[in-house]
C-alpha cells in the first residue's frame, strides 16, 4: 500500500507492506522511541494499524530548553 511520509527534512510517498506504524518506522530506519508518530493529524502509538492512503508525519521528541 502507499503511505505518505513527512520527515523533518523530507516528504515522500512510500510503497510498503508494513501493517503497523512500528514496522514502517523500522523499514525507514527510524527509532520509534525518540520520535512522535502523527497519523492523519493524530499522535499514535507504534502499534497503530496502517491503511492505504494514510499520511504519517514523523517528528523528533523535543527535550531541550
Amino acid at each position, binding site marked *: 500500500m502507499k503511505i505518505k511520509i513527512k520527515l523533518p527534512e523530507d516528504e515522500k510517498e512510500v510503497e510498503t507492506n508494513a501493517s503497523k506504524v512500528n514496522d514502517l518506522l523500522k523499514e525507514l530506519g527510524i527509532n520509534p522511541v525518540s520520535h512522535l508518530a502523527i497519523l492523519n493529524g493524530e499522535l499514535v*502509538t507504534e502499534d497503530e494499524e496502517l491503511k492505504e492512503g494514510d499520511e504519517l508525519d514523523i517528528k*523528533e521528541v523535543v527535550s*531541550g*530548553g
Partner: protein
Amino acid sequence: MDRYIRQTALNQVSEEDQETIRSKKVLIIGLGGLGGLTSSLLARAGVGHLTLIDTDKVELSNLHRLFELNEEDLGKSKAEATARKLRKINQETKIDVHNENFNVDNGERLVQEADVVIDGTDNLLTRFLINKVSVKRNTPWVYGACVGTVGTSFTFVPKKTPCLSCMIPKKPICTPECEEVGIMNTVPPVVSSHQVTQAIKLMMGKETLKKLFYFDLWKNKFQLVTVNKKEDCPICGNETED
C-alpha cells in the same frame, strides 16, 4: 492597577481576573532560555508569587537566549540572578529561590504549594518526574521544549487531558540536545509566550489548548496535533474527572 491597564484593557482579562492572577503561585522549574523569559513574563503580568528552581550557574554560552541576564551575571546562580532582575521588574511579585535540582525529595512539596507549574527544564527525565508529581498532586503543568529551530508546548491538566506519559510512553534514551545541534534564540521566546499564555488561562480558570503545539520557526510550519489520553497509562490511567 495602572501597571496592568494595558492587560485589563483586553476583552479577555477583567480587573477581577487581574486580582486572581495576583493571588496565584507559579513554580518555574529550570531558568534557561525558557524559564528565564517565562518568569519575566509572569512577573510583568502581575502573578503574585513565583518560585524559581535551578542549580546551574550562568555561562557565556547562555547569554544569547537568557534575555533578562547579562555579562555581569556570569558565574552566578541562574535562579538568584533571575530573581534579582524580577524584583527590579515588579516589587509586588514575591519570589522564592531554590538553588537545587527539582528532584524526588523536593518535587512533591514544591508542586503541592503551586497553582500552576511551568517547565523550563532541558531534559525529559525531569519532565517525567514533573508529570508524575503533578498528576499525583492534581496540579496543572505546562510543558515546553525547544532545540534547533523547533519548539513545542502542551498544557497538561490532570483528569482533563492526557499526561506526558500518554504522549511519550517510552522514555527516549537519546534526543537532540541544544549543546549538539544548537538553538536559534528566537525559538525559546515563542515557546515561553505560548506556555505563559496557557498558564494565565489556567490561573483565570479558562479552557486551555488540548493539543500539542509544534512548530519549526525556520520553515514557518506551525501545527496543532491531537493527543489522546491512554486508558492504560501507568501514570494517569486511573485518574478520571470528578
